[in-house]
């Protein structure tokens, strides 16, 4: 303790050296930032088959909010949710589920949302029937048994919102000419994207699949004036156009 403090003279920071170091470190950091952001941006496009838990914010907001704690994963009683790994479709550490493996069981008290500390699962969602995890799409009409004129109906019957989110639309079977076909049809307004239909589909590869809403849904262009068909038709008739 009582030794001479030989150090005290060297203490004053050499300014030029300091500035040089700062500049170098600044450059290095800039490059690093670019690199990491690049990786993050690139993998922030959600894998189309990875569906977010109920109440998840829009993908961009979700990625701002989620701290990747896994509390939602641990709160789910059905082991539906998983945390994404590196090199998987979804951004590393964020929760998702694969409907074909384990669908969401639509818990009435929505424990996954309650557990989320960051609000990336929106706590305003209190009625699970209003969840929008994705939209089911009957994607393969060629192999769907109902489209072949058979009565499989499995996806229709397992849907928690049967006759609402998914209906069977009766249609004349032109092939046999005296049978009916019952085509499973998803109502995108009420489908929650729970994925029970996809999970239950009897085919080896499901003919009905849940896709994230931004992939499944079309969008009317803002300039489209042909929305109200009745009015448009009248207008055309008035103008003397033939239909």
């Amino acid at each position, binding site marked *: 303790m009582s030794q001479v403090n030989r150090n005290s003279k060297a203490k004053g920071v050499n300014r030029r050296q300091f500035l040089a170091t700062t500049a170098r470190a600044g450059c290095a*950091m800039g490059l690093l930032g670019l690199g990491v952001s690049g990786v993050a*941006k690139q993998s922030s496009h959600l894998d189309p088959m990875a569906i977010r838990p109920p109440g998840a914010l829009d993908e961009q907001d979700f990625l701002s909010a989620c701290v990747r704690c896994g*509390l939602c994963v641990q709160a789910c009683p059905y082991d539906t949710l998983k945390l994404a790994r590196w*090199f998987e479709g979804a951004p590393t*550490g964020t929760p998702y589920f694969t409907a074909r493996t384990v669908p969401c069981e639509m818990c009435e008290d929505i424990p996954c949302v309650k*557990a989320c500390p960051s*609000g990336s699962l929106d706590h305003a969602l209190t009625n699970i029937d209003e969840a929008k995890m994705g939209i089911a799409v009957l994607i393969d009409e060629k192999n769907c048994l109902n489209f072949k004129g058979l009565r499989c109906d499995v996806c229709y019957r397992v849907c928690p919102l049967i006759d609402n989110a998914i209906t069977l639309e009766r249609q004349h079977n032109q092939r046999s000419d005296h049978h009916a076909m019952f085509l499973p049809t998803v109502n995108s307004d009420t489908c929650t994207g729970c994925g029970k239909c996809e999970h239950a589909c009897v085919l080896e590869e499901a003919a009905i699949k849940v896709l994230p809403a931004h992939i499944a849904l079309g969008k009317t262009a803002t300039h489209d004036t042909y929305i109200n068909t009745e009015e448009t038709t009248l207008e055309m008739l008035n103008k003397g156009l033939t239909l």
Partner: protein
Amino acid sequence: MTNGMSNTKMKTPGAAQTRFAQAAIDELGWWRAHKFLFLRRASQLCVLLTFAIGPWMGLWVLKGNLSSSELLGTVPLSDPLVTLQVLMTGHLPETALLVGALLIALFYLLAGGRVFCSWVCPVNLVTDCASWLRRKLRLPRTAEMPRGLRYYLLALVLLLPLVTGITVWEWVNPVPILYRALLFGAGSGLWILAMIFLLDLFISERAWCGHLCPTGALFALLGKASPVKVSAVNASACDNCMDCFEVCPERQVLKPALKGDNPMIVDSDCTQCGRCIDVCAQRVFQYQNRIALKAENNQ
């Protein structure tokens, strides 16, 4: 030569000179020369196990991981750095996250910020391992990186969410990646830890924890005023064996305490790991409570 009595780690038959910290072992016995190292490992494992017995055995004391968790189903605890990042994206999180971050910040404000690094952080196991190997293999000391780098990185980590709107750092942050690997089986991110290990071992000594980690940087800032410090109470007994310099992950903090006027290691870079206490045969160092000490002196 060494007496090789109680140390089982030592296997290299060719090592001709004295084993590291042999003086302390001879003087104090193996236990006292490894006490804080042992307690520290125990603490790191305890924290990890408290998290792990949930998913592994269904005993839920702590849910979640180091990023955010819930103690006994009620008390929220969250990492201040990830919480700050979320705030920087402009997203206002649920109060649970904010309260959790505040509780953790308060704890490290009192306990000493980088106590997290040495007593809790899982990456510390990896970097200490690299440093131990480095000593065993006698790898040459390479060029020092500037110590301030971690503060630039911290600034960057907080700036990127502002620019990009996403918590960019969480893609690569090794601290939660290791926890997620163990608790959620998400092992494919471990390549980042392998990189850190190799970086520390071959490229630059203590590169990650000592120079880069922004988590460590934030905790260092938090712990500036903490009352608990390591102090060179017995600096006059120092025989310049340099063992503490050899083992300290932030060796620049030692000299001012050993050779300056204030024996207290006030530099917040000190991780308060207590290894310097362990390896010093002269018992130069001790944990001290700054506040209690001041009160005593004022009496």
